[in-house]
């Protein structure tokens, strides 16, 4: 539980963070809430040589709603999302899912940007952003670019972020149609064994912990779009997935759970 030696830089602006990343190269890591990175460092599964702390950077946290779009700064904590009345009104799925992450201590430190950038298939928030059809705004040495959430997750703990890029904002559409998040776990503070996020009555459906990345359940979405019942649409939830095996579940059981939970989520969301 003792991390390896590491250098520490505190960035006071996005530009400074990007510059620090560019200077340190591959060995640098951004530090936001530290709720994923620090545990990995303590187990020496991550051994960055430099930590660039963006935790106190101004301007990257907060929720703004303009027209049909909700913009959320990357440093906004899960707790802020969970307790925001504005978000609960504009995008209740995201507010609810934020409240399902870990425990209160984790939610007070962990950030939306960190959760997405970490690209853990077992995380809750990536699935919500996928189901909502969100967009990620990233900044790098050459300026800013937008990445659709569907294009963002590229592999296990891998994303489309460049080594010298910073995720600055997450945009999701205002979404008040039928929604549900089914998180199945054995203890309240645990990661999902399987999770299913449903937005807009089944127009958007995403799965947690059903493969190497957070993923959209395209087959279910298509079935719902084609008028299938919740039961029939849920039947294809696991199609094409390669769910992992761990202490809690093997792949077959995860596939089974994904169908059960998808049916429950679609039903609750009014599909």
């Amino acid at each position, binding site marked *: *539980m*003792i991390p*390896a*030696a590491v250098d520490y830089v505190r960035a006071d602006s996005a530009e400074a963070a990007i510059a620090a990343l560019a200077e340190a190269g591959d060995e640098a890591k951004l530090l936001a809430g530290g709720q994923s990175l620090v545990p990995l460092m303590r*187990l020496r599964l991550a051994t960055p040589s430099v930590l660039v702390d963006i935790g106190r950077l101004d301007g990257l946290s907060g929720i703004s709603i303009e027209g049909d779009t909700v913009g959320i700064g990357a440093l906004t904590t899960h707790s802020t999302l969970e307790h925001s009345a504005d978000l609960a009104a504009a995008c209740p799925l995201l507010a609810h899912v934020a409240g399902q992450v870990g*425990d209160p201590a984790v939610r007070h430190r962990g950030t939306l940007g960190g959760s997405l950038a970490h690209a853990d298939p077992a995380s809750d928030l990536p699935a919500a952003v996928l189901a909502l059809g969100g967009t990620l705004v990233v900044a790098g040495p050459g300026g800013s670019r937008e990445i659709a959430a569907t294009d963002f997750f590229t592999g296990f703990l891998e994303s489309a972020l460049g080594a010298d890029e910073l995720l600055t904002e997450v945009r999701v559409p205002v979404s008040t149609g039928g929604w549900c998040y089914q998180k*199945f776990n*054995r*203890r*309240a*503070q*645990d*990661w999902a*064994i399987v999770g299913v996020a449903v937005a807009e009555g089944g127009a958007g459906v995403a799965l947690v912990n059903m493969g190497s990345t957070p993923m959209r359940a395209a087959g279910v979405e298509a079935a719902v779009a084609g008028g299938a019942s919740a039961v029939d649409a849920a039947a294809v939830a696991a199609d094409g997935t390669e769910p992992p095996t*761990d*202490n*809690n*579940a*093997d792949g077959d*059981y995860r596939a*089974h*759970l994904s*169908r*059960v*939970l998808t049916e429950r989520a679609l039903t609750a969301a009014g599909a």
Partner: protein
Amino acid sequence: MTETPFTGGIVGESRPRREDPALLTGEAKFIDDLQIPGALWLACVRSPHAHARITAIDASAALGIDGVVAVYCGDDLADAWEAPLPCAWPVTDDMKNPAHYPVAQGKANYAGDIVAVVVAESRYAAADGLEGVVVDYEPLDAVVTIEDAESDRVVIHEDCGTNVSYEWPLVPDPDAVEAAFADAAHHVTETFVHQRLIPTAMEPRGVAAVPAPHNGNMTLYSSTQIPHILKVMAAITLGLPEQKIRVIAPSVGGGFGCKLNVYAEEVICMALAQRHGVPVRWTEGRTEASGSTIQGRAQRQTIELAADADGKLTAVRATLLADMGAYLQLVAPGVPLLGAFLYHGLYDVPVYSFTCKSVFTNLTPTDAYRGAGRPEATYAIERAMDALAVAVGVGPDEIRSRNFIPTEKFPYDSPAGLVFDSGNYQPTLDRAKELVDWDGRRAEQVDRRAAGSTTHLGIGISSYVEMCGLAPSRTLAALNYGAGGWESATVRILPTCKVQVVTGVTPHGQGHETCWSMIVADQLGIDPDDVEVLHSDTAISPLGMDTYGSRSLAVGGTAIWMATEQVIEKARAIAAHMLEANADDLEFAGGNFTVKGSPDKEVPLAGVAFGAFTAHDLPEGIQPNLQAQVTFDPSNFVFPFGTHIAVVEVDEATGAVELLDYAAVDDCGNQINPLIVEGQLHGGIVQGVAQALWEDASYDADGQCRAANLADYLVPSAAECIDMKLDYTVTPSPSNPMGVKGIGEAGTIASTPAVMNAVVDALRPMGITDITMPASPMTVRRAIEVATGGAS
């Protein structure tokens, strides 16, 4: 039966723990909080293999790291040990006990076995040093299951010639057993597996050995439950003069039995502190703990019941296969024996048979874990009683009522040879049924089934009796244990009439300071806040047998009560002298001595205490000061009992089990502080429910722990707990003057079978008769799929 001897109005009150403010604010110091100037840090290179020959160790890279002072492998330290790590319970004369050295020599026998140690100037440097020690291993086949161990396919300790450590039978009358089963109208046979559990004290272990090179003293700070036993054992293991060793347990954040041991890191720190002439310390990491601290349970049990046509038990036969892990730790071989006498539970059974075989595996050693032996025994009989109820065609409540030891039979000569002190079992079952609305729940269960609901209700009973208050020294001798079971106390009234109580028990979360001060204050008629309780330091409390086996109150508390009585008697003699009265004519109440019939003639205890201190005018033959020391050796165990009922809901589609309701009606005799009793039950019950539903130290085929951290090892949190309905009956023990019984393990003993009986009850209509623990959603779902033909 004894009534309560307490009249002071303090004992029996629910008083908040006086320990808590210091613990909650950080004022109390745990081992890792200690500032020890100049201390070197120890880090342990642990075998990543469950079974491997150590062919070479190259520490040169580690020695090149800034701050690393030294690296030692097993051979380097071989001359530091006068004896191997101790096992104090050679249960049979021919028990196989392989030499267990603190640092492995030649071969590592489990993943976590220490193969080398790094000593460094900081904890960080020590951790860095670990990566610089290159060990060449030649991996060997690992023995991971008890069945594989028993087969001797691979013999782990070549010098033992077998993996079987011992076989221990308790079969008073073999012919009667055969006859009972031959004649039985019902013969139930059940096999259950107790998974390995990781005790998971909130505070991991830690050690700091502080030498005084010039006068030869050695102070060992350790997060331990047993500073007294540790002192003796460390002296023997290291060949140090015992009078030079002082062991201090600072604030200790839980133990559950896992700190009832003598560990490699303790004696390694002492040996290296001696060698380097400076303090050496070590703090355990949570992941490290899965390979450095003992684990619990790990048994396979077969239980058979013989009963007549009415379901009245005629015989119980239990056979056990127990996993000791790679070596025998301090009391590990005795753990099955602590259950051996209780496989007939609280039922009146004439004929009894128990046999146990214990084997070595290439896994972390096991040892006592909350309840040690009794949870296993209770699980077997309580699960089997449900099976018998089904066979006989009566309810689980009825089968128990038909078999409870009748109240008039106490003290009860048990078929296993114990004498149960006192009991009255039926009222606990009746009350527990009331608390969960038994009839209402049964009706709801029927309704749900009739309506085709896929969320099935299950109701499970567990009635238990356990033996605790370890222990009469003579009984321990009969069981070949290497020490006694007495306890010591000193009660000292200071000149200003404040009181010091010195106890040999070692609290690590139980609230002893609160309870002991209540007992003494009640006896003396003073304020509990005027009573200080000293403990956990062998220089302050030189005599003690420490805390485990729910012994602290029944044995240690009794010693305190007796010492206080002796102090009162001495004070009475002095008061009589002061009042010019006959000692027999004095009454002592409310902290005052008065002369019977002359209420104006009185002297307060404070006056007597000061008089005893000045010693200006003491009666002939009375020594100055008010102090008494008592060592109490109990005449018997104490036998708390009760009934717990769990109500669960099983989601057929996912296999998820949810605890809906839980009632516990316990009887621990007279209660000193009901709030403490409640706390012990809450924690104990959750710990037992955790075995049923969550915790599982599972290992893969290579002997790697798959649950080595708290993300994978599912210790429940407050969020998983429900409000428990607790109630009590009071049947005092006649074996001690306070009429008390232990309650520290009862919750853990009772709750596991209650929950598993409930889970099986929910699923029985599908033909399911057992679920392997823990009843994880996947396990339950699989059982449902198998039972219902794979529908999903």
